[in-house]
């Protein structure tokens, strides 16, 4: 079927493909997730007196929620204790900055006391082919080294600090050792660093209670696109080349036809 369904694009400016503008107030909101890293306690979480989370089990992570920027009084109670129940953890005037992506972690401090720590998540764009690894020490345990494939990647990480790096996307075998030693505290475990994703690993639990564990949170959509698709180097499928071949084929056909005519005429002449 002859077709001219080749759509010749005019200028395809990137601005023509601009995303719809976000609503004005969205810039003031923060994106907040909550991780429960206190072993053994199923809890309810209140923000400014309202229930944010109920029946929250250790080792679980909430979906992210948009909250207006500002200061929040956070309270963690035993499940079912009610808004006025005894606080397992209480933190007042916790600052939630507008536009930030935050994980609030309920965890044990280095001495084993329950506490709340807000961490700001790095959601900046990374290069294509890369993944971001973030590691947060939120366990009742001493300083640790974080190892990737047996080699120390981050040294002397203490509760409640974090470390991060952009690495080539792929799977690493990760473990956590007591700082400066080969004594494994957690792991090893396979951690997949997905491309364009911030993979946030939490070391949580209690060394004294032998329940140290790793939890993971992933934030996607931070990737960059490739710089192009270079899909041809032969030149044989070039428009002009094909047109030239077409032209050459026509000329060849015409010449062949003329030759046939000439031969025929000669024969006719000879016969006559």
């Amino acid at each position: 079927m002859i077709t001219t369904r080749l759509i010749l694009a005019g200028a395809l400016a990137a601005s023509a493909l601009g995303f719809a503008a976000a609503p004005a107030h969205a810039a003031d909101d923060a994106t907040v997730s909550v991780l429960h890293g206190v072993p053994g306690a199923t809890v309810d979480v209140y923000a400014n007196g309202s229930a944010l989370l109920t029946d929250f089990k250790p080792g679980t992570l909430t979906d992210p929620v948009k909250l207006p920027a500002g200061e929040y009084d956070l309270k963690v109670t035993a499940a079912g204790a009610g808004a006025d129940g005894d606080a397992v953890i209480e933190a007042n005037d916790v600052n939630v900055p507008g536009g930030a992506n935050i994980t609030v972690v309920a965890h044990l401090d280095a001495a084993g006391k329950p506490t709340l720590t807000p961490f700001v998540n790095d959601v900046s764009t990374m290069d294509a082919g890369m993944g971001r690894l973030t590691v947060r020490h939120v366990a009742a345990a001493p300083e640790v080294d974080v190892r990737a494939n047996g080699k120390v990647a981050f040294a002397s990480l203490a509760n409640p600090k974090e470390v991060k790096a952009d690495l080539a996307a792929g799977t690493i075998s990760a473990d956590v050792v007591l700082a400066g030693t080969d004594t494994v505290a957690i792991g090893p475990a396979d951690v997949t660093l997905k491309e364009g994703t911030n993979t946030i690993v939490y070391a949580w639990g209690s060394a004294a209670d032998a329940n140290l564990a790793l939890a993971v949170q992933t934030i996607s959509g931070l990737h960059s696109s490739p710089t192009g698709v270079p899909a041809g180097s032969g030149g044989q499928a070039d428009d002009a080349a094909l047109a030239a071949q077409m032209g050459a084929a026509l000329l060849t056909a015409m010449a062949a036809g003329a030759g046939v005519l000439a031969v025929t005429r000669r024969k006719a002449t000879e016969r006559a």
Partner: protein
Amino acid sequence: MPRILKARVAVAAAAATLAGVVTFTAMGGTRDPASALAAAEAALPTTSPTVVVSTTNTVSPTPSVSASRSPNPRTTGVLRASDASLTAARPASRPPTRIRIPSLGAVLGIDPMGLDRDGAMALPESPSRAGWYRFGPTPGEGAGATVVAAHIDSRAEGAGPFAGLRTLDKGDLIEVVAGRTIRYRVTDVLRIDKGELDLDSVFSRTGPERLHVVSCGGPFNRVTRHYEDNIVVIAVPVGAGSP
């Protein structure tokens, strides 16, 4: 037969170029290529521009919590939490291994590909093998564009199966094997100058699930040994509404 068909298309296109006329033949309406790529992505609303926290649960209603210390803040719902352990089950996704384009008589094996030294998508050397951009969505993953590309030709092998991409029509069938066979229908065939191509749209990971089959085309620059344009074929899963 395919060779002559391509020659006719090339002559028509060359004639249009010579005439200085930008010929636009819409396949699905009066959309221009820019909005064809963008419309496919914009069809689904997104709550946040880029950031998605992956969990195994669906998103629950958003609680309404006031930042002020008013005496009676209202809550409209409660958050749900899901297992954050390292071994929590993640949905399996199968990479594509073969692409079939019956109207071209084309069948190509697909290799997962990453980036070349220049940060561009890497491709198998032979035009008779296709590459899948392995950092993007797999077919059937539910959102975003699965990108499958192949060289239109090479010095060693000449023109390959994807040299016929630009002859595809709206409605043509494309099949991709990823464990099971997923069937797509072509909605757009675009030829876009490389300098103007919006790569974020070609490699988009959001919006409705779709297939982008990519190669090169247009005039060939004999000095740089590169084609000036990319050919992008957009196809949607059979059964999906047209964008």
